[in-house]
């Protein structure tokens, strides 16, 4: 599995992709693999504020339920509604079509705290 070079990653297994002031947020391939068959995805509606390091939603698999943490702070401008009816998409394309939310960032300097693709892969390698 490839982890896009232009994304940034958290130790809680989220990714964030920045385009201008918009941050697209999802969970990593490794995260969905650990969870297994995903059955529910709960994410906030547009207009909700999310805060760095705080849980903004959850992903539930057959086996367990996990919180998803915001890698950056800001206001949700879009939620990926297809996941409500097709949660399995998150197993299939976690780095692409199965993004969770888009956020208008408040503080772009937060990005410096996040991991590069190489560092994240090293991190999950160490975790195995």
């Amino acid at each position: 599995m490839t982890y896009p070079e232009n994304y940034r990653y958290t130790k809680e297994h989220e990714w964030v992709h920045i385009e201008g002031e918009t941050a697209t947020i999802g969970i990593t391939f490794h995260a969905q693999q650990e969870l297994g068959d995903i059955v529910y995805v709960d994410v906030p509606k547009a207009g909700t504020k999310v805060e760095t390091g705080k849980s903004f939603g959850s992903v539930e698999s057959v086996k367990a339920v996990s919180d998803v943490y915001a890698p950056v702070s800001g206001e949700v401008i879009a939620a990926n509604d297809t996941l409500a009816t097709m949660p399995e998409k998150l197993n299939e394309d976690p780095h692409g079509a199965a993004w969770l939310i888009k956020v208008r960032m408040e503080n772009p300097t937060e990005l410096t705290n996040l991991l590069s693709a190489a560092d994240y892969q090293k991190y999950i390698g160490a975790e195995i």
Partner: protein
Amino acid sequence: MPDPALQRTPLNEVHRAAGAKMVDFGGWDMPVQYSGIVEEHNAVRSAVGLFDVSHMGEIEVRGPQAMKLVDHVTTNAVAKLKEGQAHYSGLLYEHGGFVDDILVHKVADDSFFLCVNASNQDKDFEHIQAAANGFDCEVEFAGGKYAQLAIQGPKALAVAQQLTDVPLAPIRYYWFVDGVFAGVPARIARTGYTGEDGFEVYVAPERAAEVWNAILSAGQPYGIKPCGLGARNTLRLESKMALYGHEIGASITPLEADLAWIVKLDKGDFIGSDALRRQAAKGVTRKLVGFEMRGRGIGRDGYEVLLEGKPAGWVTSGSPAPTLGKNIGLCYLPVEQARPGQRIEIMIRNQPVEAETVPTPFYKRPK
């Protein structure tokens, strides 16, 4: 690499080499899934699956008073077992709570083979040994002598029969025979923890890998899948089979756990019988009952159950049921409400979500 503190089955390297996802299961490094829980679950319901359950413990009781001892420490009627027959039973404390739930196999009048839960095997052995004082028999901790492989599903018979000259079709459910299986001396029992037909095969640990591979090869034309403990859990839950630490435990009696059928109070005294007689006379106050989610969510182990908005019980196991396409679970409720058709709510992440009690088992295999 597995955590060195964890115990490993003889198939550990086989699982790791095959890319199974491994987890710490009660101190054992075990495969939780191979290809995916739902895919493995469906393979067992529609075709056949293979599980490594070598973490399960074995205890052997032999001697002139072996039957008397096993009858003394378990709830079911051991005297009714025929040679080559097994039954499900409870190992209880004096106060009526479970030490463990076990399978008792009668090998001969003076020889019994107990299959017990992995994480309980040490305390089970100590419990039985302590009770054996004064009985003319020996109790052997035999966990290291056996690997156990479970072949489960409607095609289990066809797959297993290719590997042995022992006629398997005549073996009835919960009976067993000793014979050669995949070239290896084995105990072949028609038992399982999935709600499907199938066999549990006990072999020497050093031969486990070759038997595992032989079963996978023989099963290939039938679409056999190696399965992990994740699918084992969803399969047993659909069939409403108890899991120690969830439906049953030291503070739960078989009468509460809807397991009165394994308690034979008329057989005479056994460890826990006084407490159960008292409880039966007074009536239980809480009981295990199945539920289906009506609202969106999954009521999981430990979640609170509400009746008319008030805390009334707890969930013991809950999961999506792949065969049924519903979210199901088991919970304890006051006995008056522990019957099908009761509207309940389950606290899921601080939100009450609607559910309803239903008849069990959730799934029963077509005959």
